[in-house]
């Protein structure tokens, strides 16, 4: 008798438990820091309209730019007492979605906005998306420190990530399968790489998609046969290959000069986007970022300041 009572209590616990778990499984994404999809339609426009006169500014978007944004925010707040700047990541796509539905004042993006997204900003926020280039980033091709490779051409990288080149032997390395690491598809880095390196072809199915560039770096650090891509600022325990535009061009090492003069073939701008021209503290912040003081922070973090024209 007692057994039965307990059994039925277990059964009930089991049912409710799995019910809840199942539901959690479906509703988990917000736990990863990405914006829950629901918020895109609900929106919290009133509270976070462009901050005219407001002293609190939110920045959201690119994971590549999170550290940079935080350093900027810290230094800016030190110089301008009474202002608050909040920085969160989630990916460029997440940041752009947040700008469209009014959940952030400034969107940080590591890729330029698509036309459809600009149209969304115009229609949902009633103001055009305003783009500001704030820094320069060279996309590095990472390999493990033990890898004998020194340089690689863009077409060779493309073949590797399309799954056509499968073994390091074909590139003069050891006889071992190439282990591919990349970013998940809400990342600006993913989008940039797909467009500029893969020419918009599909990534091989065997690319392991990791959350954040630091996860890619960690993976390549622990994997002698791994290859990854991401921002130049993350070179910690791994090596960045010199990159050739095509097989006949010279190999170029990523550096401030090669990125600024465009000879490093895979460099990109990092952007701030606002809905309409920024006002108040947001405006002060953006113009401060473009001053020499703001631009100096960029080199400290490991990215490159904008070229001085």
């Amino acid at each position, binding site marked *: 008798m007692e057994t039965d009572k307990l059994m039925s*209590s277990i059964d009930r616990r089991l049912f409710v438990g799995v019910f809840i778990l*199942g539901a959690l499984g479906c509703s988990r994404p917000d736990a990863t820091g*990405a914006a829950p999809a629901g918020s895109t339609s609900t929106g919290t426009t009133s509270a976070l309209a462009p901050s005219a006169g407001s002293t609190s500014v939110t920045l959201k978007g690119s994971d590549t730019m999170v550290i940079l944004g935080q350093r900027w925010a810290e230094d800016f707040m030190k110089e301008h007492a009474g202002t608050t700047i909040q920085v969160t990541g989630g990916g460029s796509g997440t940041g752009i979605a947040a700008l469209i539905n009014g959940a952030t004042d400034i969107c940080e993006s590591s890729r330029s906005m698509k036309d459809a997204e600009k149209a969304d900003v115009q229609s949902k926020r009633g103001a055009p998306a305003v783009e500001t280039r704030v820094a320069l980033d060279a996309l590095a091709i990472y390999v493990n420190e033990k890898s004998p490779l020194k340089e690689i051409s863009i077409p060779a990288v493309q073949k590797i990530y399309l799954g056509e080149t499968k073994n390091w032997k074909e590139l003069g390395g050891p006889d071992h399968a190439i282990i591919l690491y990349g970013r998940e598809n*809400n990342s600006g880095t993913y989008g940039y790489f797909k467009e500029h390196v893969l020419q918009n072809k599909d990534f091989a*199915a*065997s690319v*392991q998609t990791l959350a954040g560039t630091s*996860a890619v770096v960690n993976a390549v650090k622990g994997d002698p046969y791994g290859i990854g891509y991401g921002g130049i600022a993350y070179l910690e325990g791994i090596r960045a290959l010199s990159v050739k535009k095509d097989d006949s061009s010279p190999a170029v090492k990523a550096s401030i000069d090669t990125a600024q003069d465009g000879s490093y073939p895979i460099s990109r701008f990092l952007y701030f986007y606002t809905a309409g021209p920024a006002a108040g503290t947001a405006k002060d912040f953006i113009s401060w970022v473009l001053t020499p003081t703001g631009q100096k922070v960029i080199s400290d973090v490991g990215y490159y300041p904008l070229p001085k024209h």
Partner: protein
Amino acid sequence: MAVSISTAPRTVKKAATLTLKRRARWGEAIGEAAVKIVALTSIASVVLILIFVGKEALPVLTSSELHKELTFGGMFRPSAAGYVWQPVSEVPKYNIVPLFVGTLKVTLVSLFVAVPLSVAAAVFVAEFAGRTAREIVKPAIELLAGIPSVVVGFFALVVLATWVQSIFGTEHRLNTLVAGIALSFAIMPVVFSVSEDALRAVPDSYRQAAIALGSTKSQVVLRVVLPAAAPGIAAAVVLGFGRAIGETMIVILATGNAALLDFDLGHSVRTVTATIAQELGEVVVGSAHYHLLFFLGALLFLSTLVVNAGGERIVSGMRRKLGGGS
């Protein structure tokens, strides 16, 4: 947690009618209503989530607009490129077979690791351990449930993956095996606690009878207690399965998330939960991809429900066979 909520009012009510005076019953009635409302709230939220997920998933089946991009056959049958999940592409490919196979692979590995260990631990604690040993082992295992899954996942990513690769020489550093082992940490406390409850619920008269017939301690456990507790242990395994299949953070970090379709445990996999979590943040609301992600969630939910119902049948069948009475 749900147990105490659902059973408490009945017992309390009985006690109330027997002993309390009329004035005190008012307080009881209010208390009972409050408890009921709390219970109903949890049910209502589950139902609301279900409705929401169902509503967002439905266009995958019904909308002809979506079917231009996303066909039902394309979700299950291989395209020219094979079984490919490539939703962000000029020609998006939405084959969900690799995702479900991936989920199943990781879940089965985790059960394979967790079930023997946790059932053995439960047998030890319930049958063999002395008081001191029990008071150390039991909370220690249950403490595993308190470790946030992101911590377990990170441990797997940084430490466990290196061990597994150096021991088994797997091709991918992050793979099914690593994720399965990490996931087993998450389900062990569940399987352990429920199994231990089941073992303890076996009446002492069974053990005494077996001992009286001359059984050794191990015979008592293997031939009498374990079979008697089998339905509860089966329930524990099903509960563990449900926990494993819905887990997100550990698999995102430890699987590598490559949507490969094969049965090699040394290869990376992409699970359904990880796909939803990674892609839902960016997806354009109302697109085929968006609705498909909700459809995946609905399928995941349905499959846990089916497994559960199946588990329930097994449990009640076993109970009848054991002749446990009413």
